[in-house]
């Protein structure tokens, strides 16, 4: 439970509060992670900084791409005519509409959960995020980083304020498979595959996995193998996966089962990305 909630009138004010209160404060977006039962922040020693009414709840389309405010809810993503289908599908991994009405894209990314609804897809889509901070002179500092970097270095970024998520307009194949016994049970595995296709060859491949009990992971070795056309069939994919990832044995299944899911899904999505083209 937070001990107080500060509602700022502007981003600058929000960041000033943050600078002042430091790690005693917490950004509050939809609250679905912060306020739920196992929130690590439930001891009442934190001051909430509301992210509402700061203009972060808009989706803007430009020629270059789509900019999504951090406070856009998962349901707004689904309802928007400009959001790519793969992002909508990932938002839909939150199986409850009521939850989607509350949960924000910023809160989801900043939670960086192992079973993150959006992160694998965002990595595969090569999304970028904007973070904002304030310096001692009160000047706002903007940073623009690839989402993969954010996830890889999450410890450094955790606690910094996300303002926007950017997705380039691109003719890119992005698809995510979520394996779960029910729509709302903890998933067995999340596998996302993104690539460009140039003259029948997959380039710029991004593969990200989640819900394997070991955090959101990019699989750069496999990405490279796909681009090098080293993975010609399912068997090779399965072998490659076994070498690079060791999922946890947990309530959703055995490590072996999850490796298998990752292997076959990469095979399938790679083939789908290639479409009718030669490998």
């Amino acid at each position, binding site marked *: *439970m*937070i*001990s*107080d*909630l500060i*509602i700022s009138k502007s981003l600058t004010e929000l960041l000033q509060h943050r600078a002042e209160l430091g790690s005693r404060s917490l950004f*509050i977006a*939809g*609250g*679905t992670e912060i*306020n*739920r*039962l196992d929130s690590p922040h439930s001891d*009442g020693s934190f001051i*909430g900084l*509301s992210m*509402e009414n700061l203009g972060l709840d808009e989706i803007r389309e430009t020629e270059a791409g789509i900019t999504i405010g951090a406070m856009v809810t998962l349901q707004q993503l689904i309802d928007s005519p400009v959001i790519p289908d793969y992002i909508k599908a990932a938002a839909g991994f939150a*199986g*409850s*509409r*009521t*939850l989607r*009405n*509350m949960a924000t894209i910023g809160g989801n990314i900043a939670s960086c959960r192992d079973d993150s609804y959006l992160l694998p897809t965002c990595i595969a889509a090569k999304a970028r995020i904007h973070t904002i901070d304030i310096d001692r002179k009160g000047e706002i500092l903007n940073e623009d980083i690839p989402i993969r970097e954010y996830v890889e270095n999450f410890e450094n970024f955790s606690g910094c304020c996300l303002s926007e998520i950017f997705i380039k307009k691109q003719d890119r194949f992005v698809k995510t498979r979520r*394996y779960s*016994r*029910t*729509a*709302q*049970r*903890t998933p*067995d595995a999340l596998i996302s595959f993104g690539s460009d296709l140039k003259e029948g060859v997959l380039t710029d491949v991004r593969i990200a996995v989640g819900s394997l009990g070991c955090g959101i992971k990019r699989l750069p070795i496999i990405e490279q193998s796909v681009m090098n056309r080293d993975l010609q069939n399912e068997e090779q994919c399965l072998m490659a996966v076994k070498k690079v990832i060791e999922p946890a044995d*947990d*309530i959703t*299944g*055995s490590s*072996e*089962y999850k490796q*298998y*899911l990752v292997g*076959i899904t990469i095979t*399938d999505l790679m083939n789908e990305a290639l479409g009718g083209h030669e490998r």
Partner: protein
Amino acid sequence: MKIACKINGVFKELFGDAGISLQKVLKKEGYISVRDSDDAEGFAGSDTILVNGIPVYANLITLAQVDGKEIVTPESLLRGRRLSVVQQAMIDAGVVQSAYNAPAAALLITELLERIKDPTEVEIKDALSGLFNRATGYKQFFTAVKLAKERMNDPGYTTEIAPEFRDDLRIVGKVKPKVDGAKLVSGQRAFVEDMVEQGSCHLKMLRSPHAHAYITQIDTQDAEELPGVVSVITYKNCPDVYYGSAGQGFPEPSPYDSRMFNQKVRHVGDRVAAVVAETPEIALEAISLIKVEYEVLKPIFTVDQAMAHDAPVVQNGVVEYVVGAPDNLNEYNQSSDSRDGKVIYQFPLHADSHKNIAAGAHGAIGDIDSGFSEADTIIERTYETSQIQCTPLETHISYAKMDNDRVVIHASTQVPWHLRRIVAAALGISENKIHVIKERVGGGYGSKQDILLEDVTAYATFTTGRPVLYHYSREEEFIGNSTRHPMKITVKLGSKRDGKLTAVYMDVRANTGPFGNHCLTVPMNACSKSLPLVLCDNMKFDVTTYYSNIPPTGAYQGYGAPKGSYALMTALGELSAELGLDLLDILEMNRVREGSLLEILRCLGEGREGTPALVKSCGLDGALSIGSEMIDWKKDELSDDPNISVGKGVAIIQQGSGLPGLDHSCADIKMLADGTFMLHSGGADLGTGLDTVSVKFAAEVLCVDMEQVSILSGDTDNTPFDTGAYASSGTFFSGSASKLAAEDLKAKILEAAAVSLEEKVEYLSLQTPGKVVSQSGKEITYWQLAQDTQAGLGMGQLMGYASFTTEDAAFPYGAHFCQVSVNKRTGEIKLDKYYALQDCGTPINPELALGQIYGGSFKSIGHTLYEDMILDDNGTCLTTDLKDYGVPMISELPEDFQAILIPTDDPYGPFGSKSVSEISCNGAAPAIANAIYDAVGVWMRTWPFTPEKVLKALGKI
């Protein structure tokens, strides 16, 4: 802090900590329909409200976040006392059952219809996707939305909600609103939590971190000294009385193997100490101050471990028998450990607690060996089932307070009278000092047949004089509650080449966990509700129940039947595959039918001598022929996707209608001064519609409308005795008592009318609406009759009374068919079609009967495919919330889900009725297992049938 907002259109100022959940604030402000089912997990949706017009979970918002906002709660839907169109439609469609979060559902549907005038099924599913509903199986929500949508344009709109039955009757068999529907759907005071008074104390439990240990030291001093702590109860100061939690008929076929607190803890989550304090926060703080030291023992978790010759003994107490002690008892008790306490049997149950055997039952008809020697084919297969949680929306709750020298217990229970008896014994007081009031029950499904927290709550009140509330957390619901017994069942079948069975053997090994509540009856039901489905001269069964250190087990809808049916019906599927015959033909050849004499029941008497029973009605003919046509049984279905194979499966199922010779129900009914009626039923309505059944029966018999009959039920002071709502006894037993009480009153009405009209009784009859007519043309209204009898001169208030017991059995039957698509590459199973065809005799409330079938079937689809209580190596449950445990939601509904009522007319059931709900849980596992085999050629011999298991069976991993 103070915030300002609008609630249901009214400007309000709210006060509280900035971070307190809005649900808690709203509840405190009197918006009691905003409930919580999962300690703010954000899963169940019982706390759904609208903030600025959008549905959200009130538990996941803090007070500070709604400053300046508009809040709408389900209370807004009621206009004065008038229900909204949506609320009425929900009642009419039969989706208001246990209804703990029905108000939230009404709000979601209202919001949906404001957003989309004519929503599709997909949009309805989307709108309700954040709402967990355990009782109804969701299906009738589509009807509710359609009704509401049409009535918004045309208030008089009506459509067939459910088929109606019995043209010869006015009320029975007709779709009529549930009598408590309005109260439940509109979120009025109905549940135990709504009865709690300001200033009540809160009880919290310190639970064991070890699966098996002795408490060597327990120091409660710091906790007791904490300001605000009222009492601390441990094994040292609790009553030295042994009892069991099973709310079964006395003397119970379950051992008394536990005190309120024991020196030995037998599962992770076992009771160690209770703290009673002024606030829940103080109670929790006090718990953290209790210092406990344990001598940790090796735990056992499986039947195989329990059977091992050197297995640790879970119940190593001194064994006593009330009757039937063996001669060598003293010798037997030599190896007991006094720290284990006692195990007291009311009568012998074939137990050997020092070998971890809690109970056993063995029996046979014919000659099993010659049956197998006659067989052309013999198969023997073993099936295993896992521990399953009932997950009622309303977690277990008990609220007790003193009324002079009496303890009043507001209970969410299926068994008010067993509760009173067990609590009286635990407290060492007589039953007249206890008043149990069964409030509306927000889901029971068997788990509220056990006395899990009422004993300690009542004791806390009795010893402190303070009102005490104990409300289980969702985690406690998993670790301190009854669950389905895990079982290992071996089935051996012998048959002729043509599929005719020559021998059937079932070996049931059940895991009862730390205590023996229901340890005989649940496992026996695995046999008694499956073996009589097939007719075979040679049958044998062995049932053995073992203690272990898993979280407690007990009753869950269907008792042992879902497990027994899974094993037997899947084994029949395996036999048919072995013989190369069609499973449906094998079932047809061997199945029970009307007129069959069920010899095997002679050996299955649930702790007493059984009797063979004659099947007086059996709807399997209709269920199998209609079902096979609906699913196009003979047709092979193909998928466009080469990875997917499609298969079909079937299972036949049965249950009982209460326990003849054991169950007992009473009711009385009074004529009031204006000629209307007040019915008092002992029956415990769990949301299933039992009160509606009773009112329908009385109204039918007395020739009045249902509005003329009010009901009070399940109150130990104010209604007569009833054994309770379990073993599918509601309609058959409690309903019969209400019907007979009404008939008794009818006789008295005729007698009184004979005096008033100066006519002979034989010339009189009742006529609708509410009058007595004579053959000579004279008549008297009930109003006049009430005046005549209650105005100082007459014969006094007319009252009917009945006590119903019987030795006659009425068996409901059914056939469940399904079609699955199995993805051979991923192991995923999709339920394309699920048809549940059931014979419940005359369906008394057809729409509620359908709801029961949908609900039961869907629960069993849950345990077949998704749900999993998983323990780690130390016995700690890893799946203690609804998300990890994996309850199915509306998104998991089979694509085509249909419940079909197959009416029969049972001569023993009231108005020809039989039970309907429990049986619905028995079909999914075997039907789906058979369908998976049909699709991909592998047998699923352990539930849940997860994709991983499918892949393993297919050799993919």
